[in-house]
């Protein structure tokens, strides 16, 4: 078991894409976490940029609040952009 704090790791696979969460690791401080992330998560050229965030600094939604948070969106289909026709041949949609 590690006595080091937990860090969440975000990697940008290439320019133009956003950072995505890829996993977590233990490290004593932020610079070491960044280096550990480089060794653990980018060994096979998975990324061009890394963020590490102390897991303790993340405010997360609680599973107990799942109903209040997410269920109200379930029957509001008008929020989806499905009520207009997309012309033929439009790229990047």
């Amino acid at each position, binding site marked *: 078991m*590690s006595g*080091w704090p937990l860090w969440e790791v975000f990697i940008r696979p290439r320019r133009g894409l956003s950072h995505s969460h890829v996993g977590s*690791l*233990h*490290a*004593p401080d932020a*610079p*070491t976490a960044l*280096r*550990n992330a480089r*060794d*653990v998560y980018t*060994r096979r050229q998975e990324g061009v940029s890394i963020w590490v965030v102390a897991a303790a600094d993340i405010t997360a939604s609680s599973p107990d609040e799942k109903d209040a948070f997410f269920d109200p969106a379930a029957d509001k289909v008008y929020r989806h952009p499905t009520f207009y026709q997309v012309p033929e041949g439009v790229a990047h949609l």
Partner: protein
Amino acid sequence: MTTVDELLALGDDALIAAQRLGEWCSRAPEMEEDIALTNIALDQLGAARLLLTYAGELGGAGQTEDDLAYLRDDREFRNCLLVELPDTDFAVTIGKLLFLSAHQRLRYEALAGGADEQLAGIAAKAVKESAYHLDHSSLWTVRLGDGTEESRRRMQSAVDGLWPYTHELFEGGDHRDAWLSIVEPVLAEATLDRPADGWAPTGGRVGRHTEHLSYLLAEMQVLHRAHPGARW
């Protein structure tokens, strides 16, 4: 003009360093550090393979990288004594890597701009890896040196014990001042004392090694010698 001995010195430094670092595999203090040290070991092994292959070509006797790695005896190895010393403590591993990678970075940097194009290619690849090894070992030296009373004691003890062996790195080279300008600030930031120069053991470059190398080679070479040509 590149000589076989020059290539063996570079290649054997990397090969023996890789073998020692590999000993940490599954035994490092933390899983993340385990992966980092093994990555570094594989970097060193990759450089060693290229350098020994080139040494074999240049030697003209048709020796392959495997012949050179697995079928030479300790007297034929040209690595410095520093890399073969046993890693008796994590601080010793970090100290060895700091001193070696500072040296390797300077050597590879110079060779990358050298006249020998094949060697320049190998060095250009290796110099980026050395920069990372130096970064990793510097970070740990500072962390341990400027850490707890116990970690500082052990890091200082490692630096004191290894310092005499660093003199051998500069035989036939003139990069000690540049090396000191890398290493001394790291030691200072780590609040460690820079040891005084004195005893300077030597002999690795002509095949006179410490008693530790033959044990290391026995373990590294046993499979190939017992089953010549064995493959995965």
